[in-house]
């Protein structure tokens, strides 16, 4: 069974190839069949693989499958090889299953689109790239998947390419993540030049042997990899592409946010954790970046009016939590949060998608209102997702993962009260912003008529994801409630366990209680401000500093403006200013210098003997033509005379010569 590991990324890839190379346009039913079928096969295979992986006692708890050697240049022989350990196992399980549910949902969601086949082709390539990324045994191979994910995000964000704004959003996502990718490529070059390999396991081994903790090379390498992760995962300061990425269809947003692209950075850091442990300042930077991003994005989410932008900022914030966890060495907590986040964020996006389609592409929550009765499925789906995101205690998956992160941030020697406080405030803001959206969209007066209602293909994914958003956290029971860290113990086969300085049940319980209270408090605040006492909000907004802050948060803390001013404008100015610089002048001069002699030569030489010869030929032909045309008189007797004279001449020649 494990031998079939190669099929996991190959199946969606095959689906992509079938869809993109199919001659002509396939029927929608067939496109959906290929698109969903390849992913569901992959998902089922993953379940089988994990069964066997958990049962069999593999050496080192990893399974490697070397498919072929990619390049062989002297000592540098990167292989196309797959690496299955508990980390990649969890990743492929989440990726394939969540992608499958999103694919299933898309079959109905996208049914009115003419480019149905293209949509599924891109989606399949996206899933395949992400699976390659997490299964790669080699950083070069990982980079292939990494760039594939970037390409697919570009293709899918710009899916509705007729609107230039979507193309702009797609280019922005591509270029901003490319900044991070450049850093990552440099990091890979550094690693391969100094350690001579890109095989991840070997690399980690050699790095810890060759580089002492805190050495400059380790710092630089880790920082460059962090740059790549920051770009892909939309963390500070490369987070600006994510809100624009909402230009794509809603299932695409769900796929990017829940299962694939933005979690690639989290995976990369977890995968190369040895390197980050060798570079303590960079490791701390991961946590700090995460803390800042989560606060910043949560504040922005608080004031957005576009439902998808709320969710986009929310993703940024939740990935911030994962970075926070990674930064304090709570590797498995980060992956745990990745998993629960995949469930509830997909659920939130798909619920939002139901609302958006049923209201004829209305994104503004203030124009929705009162959808509680008309769209019960979206209502409950969004509620469960929101509760999980806000980490409502005990009954939601998000609670378990976020609580674990916060506890480990508190107790880790790398963490501490300050980082914990950031996460804590973030938890409050999260509860407020997501329930704000829920209250405004689903309660209050009815403002719009509901068009299309979701069918069964959209209903099933919502139901399953709702279920997962609730029970998904029970794989990791807290020390206070059962103490069955099944998930962590699985991941600790691959990732190191967090060495907490102390383990005090009293403190843990107290912190848990505080976090639970704060998320409940956030929900109550959202209820008061946005549903029961809207006049409070009005009075608050009338104060100038508050509304100024609101505008500032609304534009995402002005990052776009600053980048525009600092990078885009100077570049545009420079390009404009420099449009006739000396290189331009030089090339123009060179062109003139080369062309002019030929022109001169041609002019001087226009009467040479070859020209004369050809002109003579033309003249001769013309004269001959004129002479011969005289003979064509139409007079029969002239012709006869001509024939007779000719015959006489011929005979005379024959007789006398």
């Amino acid at each position, binding site marked *: 069974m494990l031998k079939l590991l190669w099929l996991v990324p190959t199946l969606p890839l095959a689906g992509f190839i079938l869809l993109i190379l199919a001659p002509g346009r396939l029927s929608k039913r067939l496109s959906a069949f290929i698109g969903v079928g390849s992913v569901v096969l992959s998902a089922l295979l993953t379940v089988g693989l994990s069964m066997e992986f958990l049962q069999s006692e593999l050496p080192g708890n990893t399974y490697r499958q070397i498919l072929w050697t990619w390049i062989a240049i002297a000592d540098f022989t990167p292989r196309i090889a797959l690496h299955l350990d508990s980390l990649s196992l969890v990743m492929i399980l989440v990726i394939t299953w969540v992608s499958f549910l999103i694919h299933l949902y898309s079959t109905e969601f996208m049914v009115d689109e003419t480019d149905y086949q293209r949509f599924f082709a891109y989606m399949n390539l996206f899933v395949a790239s992400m699976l390659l990324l997490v299964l790669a045994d080699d950083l070069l191979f990982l980079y292939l998947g990494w760039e594939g994910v970037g390409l697919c995000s570009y293709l899918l964000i710009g899916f509705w390419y007729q609107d230039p704004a979507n193309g702009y959003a797609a280019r922005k996502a591509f270029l901003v993540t490319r900044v991070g990718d450049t850093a990552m490529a440099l990091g890979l070059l550094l690693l391969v030049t100094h350690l001579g390999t890109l095989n991840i396991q070997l690399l980690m081994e050699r790095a810890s042997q060759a580089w002492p903790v805190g050495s400059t090379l380790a710092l630089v390498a880790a920082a460059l990899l962090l740059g790549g992760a920051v770009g892909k995962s939309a963390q500070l300061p490369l987070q600006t592409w994510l809100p624009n990425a909402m230009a794509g269809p809603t299932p695409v947003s769900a796929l990017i946010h829940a299962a694939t692209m933005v979690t690639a950075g989290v995976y990369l850091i977890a995968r190369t954790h040895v390197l980050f442990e060798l570079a303590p300042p960079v490791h701390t930077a991961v946590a700090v970046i995460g803390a800042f991003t989560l606060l910043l994005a949560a504040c922005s989410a608080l004031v957005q009016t576009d439902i998808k932008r709320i969710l986009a900022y929310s993703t940024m914030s939740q990935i911030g939590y994962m970075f926070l966890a990674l930064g304090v060495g709570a590797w498995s907590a980060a992956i745990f949060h990745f998993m629960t986040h995949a469930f509830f964020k997909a659920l939130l996006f798909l619920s939002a998608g139901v609302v958006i389609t049923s209201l004829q592409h209305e994104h503004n929550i203030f124009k929705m209102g009162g959808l509680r009765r008309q769209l019960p499925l979206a209502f409950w789906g969004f509620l469960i997702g929101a509760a999980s995101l806000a980490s409502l205690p005990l009954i939601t998956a998000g609670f378990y993962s976020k609580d674990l992160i916060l506890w480990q941030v508190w107790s880790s020697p790398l963490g501490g009260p300050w980082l914990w406080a950031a996460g804590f405030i973030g938890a409050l803001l999260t509860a407020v912003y997501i329930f704000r959206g829920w209250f405004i969209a689903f309660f209050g007066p009815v403002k719009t008529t509901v068009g299309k209602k979701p069918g069964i293909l959209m209903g099933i994914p919502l139901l399953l994801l709702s279920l997962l958003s609730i029970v998904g956290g029970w794989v990791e029971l807290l020390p206070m409630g059962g103490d069955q860290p099944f998930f962590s113990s699985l991941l600790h086969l691959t990732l190191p366990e967090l060495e907490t300085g102390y383990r005090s049940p009293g403190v843990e319980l107290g912190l848990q209680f505080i976090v639970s209270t704060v998320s409940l408090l956030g929900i109550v605040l959202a209820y008061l401000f946005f549903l029961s006492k809207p006049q409070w909000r009005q009075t608050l907004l009338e104060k100038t500093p508050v509304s100024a802050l609101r505008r500032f948060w609304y534009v995402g803390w002005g990052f776009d403006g600053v980048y525009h001013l600092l990078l885009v404008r100077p570049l545009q100015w420079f390009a404009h200013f420099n449009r006739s610089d000396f290189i331009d002048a030089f090339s123009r001069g060179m062109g003139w210098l080369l062309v002019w002699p030929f022109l001169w030569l041609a002019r001087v030489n226009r009467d040479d003997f070859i020209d004369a010869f050809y002109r003579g030929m033309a003249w001769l032909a013309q004269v001959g033509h004129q002479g011969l045309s005289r003979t*064509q*008189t*139409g*007079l*029969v*007797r002239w012709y*006869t*005379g001509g024939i*007779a004279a000719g015959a006489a001449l011929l005979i005379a020649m024959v007789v006398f010569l």
Partner: protein
Amino acid sequence: MISIPLEHGLYLAAALFLLGLMGILGRRNLIFMLMSLEIMLNATGLAFIVAGARWGEAEGQIFFMLILTLAAAEVAIGLALILLIYRHFGTLDADRISEMRG
């Protein structure tokens, strides 16, 4: 048996041929031109007969029969054409029935 020498026959044929040719070149009436053409054909036929008789071979007479057939066909078609031309142009002057433009 006094045989007529070959040259005499050929001279006659040549004289007939030239007469015919001159008729064609000199006359403008299509009917006279057709008649002159017949004379030229007869001159050719005479030359073949003379040559056949001189070498005692049958080809000359076979050729003459071919020429006769040709002449009969030619007269049939030629006369029909002349009739049509006369009806169309109202004249039989070969120099005036041109329809060429340019």
